[in-house]
């Protein structure tokens, strides 16, 4: 037993060393990549570009399930983006509430017979397309419930433009988000197959007429932790991964894709959460197998604001769903692992995700058991345990600080000193329970996966008007919600 524990300890040390090394490497690439991103954004004149015909036309796809509370405000906000040519396609995925009716009433929509939509991708047959020439850029599809991926596929079939952008119905896009993303596409249309946007937490911010007018940190604990978590993932992680073309996920809340490539890979996969990661994996696979030059880019200055779950119940449900989606995607795509044919994606991204994301809970759990074993068998002492805990904390904290520096260098969204103090303090506090809960939720997600749980879980919608009540929103098949 002692030998086993010692052996485990050795493996664990190498595991920690490897994960630390990769984290630092990605953070380094984030710093390297952010320079041209900042300068490109600062020196670009988005105001003139947004009115330019040169900007490629974009179809915004907005899957909606039981979104009656927020849909009108969000669609109105989407209809007033600073962009030359775009259309908004709302896909009502068999909502049980009045989502469709409130849309019809608010925009005086009527059935549009000539929009049959070319069936480029398989999806549930749609019931009707609604339209009003007074809002020439708005289309509403009504279809039976089929899930988020199915809704996106229906939207793709109806879309009229070469670029598609998926947006969650409960998210708000900044007015220049689309043009910022389009700029990234226009710089290299030959290779760009997808671009990820930056998702930020709107809890605590002031919102007026669908626009975030005053950026503030959330007051509640759960959204505060998520704000820091998103910052770390989007700035400290995704900029770096995109720099080496190893990005494995473009947030379902806001991403842009070249439609032709999405159609080539058969559109979004249906059946369970994790469709945003799945589509990116499929695109990587398709481009690499066909030896086509490509990149999955990331645009951190294209911002989408979303509401973070603010209760334990909803947050845990969301995280379990992510855990399920991650495990399923990794299991289905295990053939990519360590195959030189798949370049950075196969040699680094997938191994990293399997070993340090999917299997992370098992290392954490066995690590805890091993620690108990060391103490029980008198193989350690409090000093060693303290050192171990300290290294663990410092390792994580250095990455959190690194992300905060990136935020401060490039974006400075939180302008007050008080905000920075809170962020540095809460970044440390996250180690006392929040990260551990994350491991637990992921593990529970894996259990749900093994039990073939295919539901979306609990989700509530809160109006952007903070005084309005929240509504429960548990779809029969996965639709809506947000995935970072």
């Amino acid at each position, binding site marked *: 037993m002692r030998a086993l524990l010692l052996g485990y300890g050795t493996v664990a040390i190498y595991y920690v060393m490897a994960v630390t090394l990769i984290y630092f490497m990605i953070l380094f690439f984030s710093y390297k990549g952010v320079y041209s991103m900042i300068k490109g954004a600062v020196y670009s004149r988005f105001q003139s570009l947004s009115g*330019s*015909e040169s900007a490629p036309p974009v179809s915004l796809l907005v899957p909606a399930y039981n979104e009656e509370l927020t849909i009108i405000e969000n669609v109105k906000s989407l209809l007033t983006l600073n962009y030359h040519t775009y259309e908004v396609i709302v896909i009502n995925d068999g909502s049980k509430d009045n989502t469709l009716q409130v849309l019809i009433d608010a925009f005086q929509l009527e059935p549009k017979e000539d929009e049959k939509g070319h069936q480029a991708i398989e999806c549930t047959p749609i019931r009707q397309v609604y339209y009003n020439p007074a809002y020439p850029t708005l289309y509403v599809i009504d279809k039976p419930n089929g899930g988020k991926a199915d809704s996106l596929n229906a939207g793709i079939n109806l879309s009229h433009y070469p670029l598609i952008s998926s947006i969650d119905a409960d998210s708000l896009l900044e007015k220049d988000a689309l043009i910022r993303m389009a700029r990234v596409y226009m710089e290299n249309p*030959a290779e760009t197959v997808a671009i990820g946007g930056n998702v930020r937490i709107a809890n605590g911010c002031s919102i007026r007429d669908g626009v975030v007018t005053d950026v503030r940190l959330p007051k509640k604990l759960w959204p505060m932790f998520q704000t820091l978590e998103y910052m770390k993932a989007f700035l400290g992680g995704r900029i770096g991964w995109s720099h080496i073309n190893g990005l494995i996920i473009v947030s379902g809340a806001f991403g842009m894709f070249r439609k032709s490539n999405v159609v080539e890979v058969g559109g979004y996969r249906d059946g369970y959460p994790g469709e945003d990661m799945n589509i990116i994996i499929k695109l990587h696979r398709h481009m690499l197998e066909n030896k086509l030059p490509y990149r999955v880019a990331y645009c951190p200055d294209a911002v989408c604001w979303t509401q973070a779950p603010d209760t334990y119940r909803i947050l845990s449900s969301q995280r379990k769903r992510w855990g399920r989606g991650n495990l399923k995607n990794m299991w289905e795509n295990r053939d990519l692992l360590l195959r030189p044919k798949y370049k950075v994606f196969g040699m680094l991204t997938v191994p990293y995700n399997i070993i340090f994301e999917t299997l992370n809970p098992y290392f954490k759990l066995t690590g805890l058991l091993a620690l108990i074993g060391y103490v029980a068998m008198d193989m350690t002492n409090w000093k060693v345990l303290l050192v171990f805990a300290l290294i663990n904390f410092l390792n994580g904290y*250095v990455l959190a*600080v690194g992300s905060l520096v990136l935020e401060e260098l490039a974006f400075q969204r939180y302008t007050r000193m008080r905000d920075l103090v809170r962020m540095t303090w809460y970044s440390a506090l996250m180690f006392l329970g929040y990260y551990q809960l994350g491991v637990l939720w992921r593990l529970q997600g894996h259990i749900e996966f093994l039990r073939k749980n295919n539901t979306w879980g609990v989700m509530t919608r809160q109006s952007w008007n903070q005084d309005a009540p929240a509504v429960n929103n548990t779809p029969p098949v996965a639709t809506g919600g947000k995935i970072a």
Partner: protein
Amino acid sequence: MDMHMRMASIFIAVLSGVIAVGLAALYTLKLRDIRRRRTAGVYTAKHEDWITYVLANLDGEEPLYPPPGRLNQEERRVVQERLIGWIEQFRGEQQRKLIALCEEMGLVKRHLQRLDSPFEWVRLDAAYYLGCMRSHGAVPGMMKLLASMRFSPMVFIVGRAIAKCARHTDELRDMVHVLLAHKKEAHPLIADILAESEIDIAAMLETFLRSGDEERVRLALAAMRKHSLAGSGDTLYKLTASEQADIRLKASKLLAKDAVSFSEGRARKLLIHPDGEVRALAAQAIGKLGLRSCLEQLRLTMADPEWKVRFYSARSMAMLGEEGFAELCEAAKTDTEAGAEEARDVIREEMRRRESASRETGWVAVRGRSQPAYEYVPLTQDDQVHA
């Protein structure tokens, strides 16, 4: 064990050091940001009168004068940002006066010096500002910078700066050559950059269009979306036969926009083009441009294997007056299943449209009881629709 603990202690010390440096950098950045915002507010307030003076005198004949007194670095930055904002906002004489003011204040000279900096980021920054200030003298330096750069978003920043400053077509041509050499198919963006130039680029686009070089042709086609070229119809028509699908489609689109170039003969030939996308475009354009003489050909394309061609053919027929509508009705009766279905959809749609239009004018479209075709009858007083 001691050795391991010593190693761990060193690791902890290093990590703590990195965190301390990171936190110091973080708070320094925040303090700097807060200070910058404060000083920007202070200096804006200090120069409020001068700002009012500049805006009030943009249209006057007198040259504009710099702000009074000696400006410190931060003050100069605040004033410069104001001026750059206005330069990008205004055009013509107002813009020229503001640019002259930048020269008077020594901003152009300062950035020209920075353009020789050994650091690329300084040169990039200088190129951006010199571009905004339309400094023609900076073009050679910016070209040198552009040629030395590896591909990144920054090359377009420098390219745009050159386009703003260029006074000769050759300068633009050189810039375009470098940008196209990166082979990223960024033609729309380069076209947008060219549109920033004050030079007449028509002749250059004409040569690109005729060059036979696919990259240049693509760029010319992208630029022509904004900048139409008189007399380019023949070249565009030739390009509809290009081996490259994107080129023939873009050429067809541009051709179809121009009523003069999109003659009936060309429309007929494009309707039998081997590329379905081109046929669909031609079918669509015939309706938009009202080419009634192509009606017979449109009737034939209702049996096209491509749904898009049938779709636009049917819609175009509906747009070609009663004659077109009658042909559409005929197609609904006699065509192959797909064509007839398309025709029926358009008829239904057209009836609805006419019905809704007639509500305002007092006329309504109804289906004749004894006739297979459709006709107009006057609306009854109680506004009932006869069916």
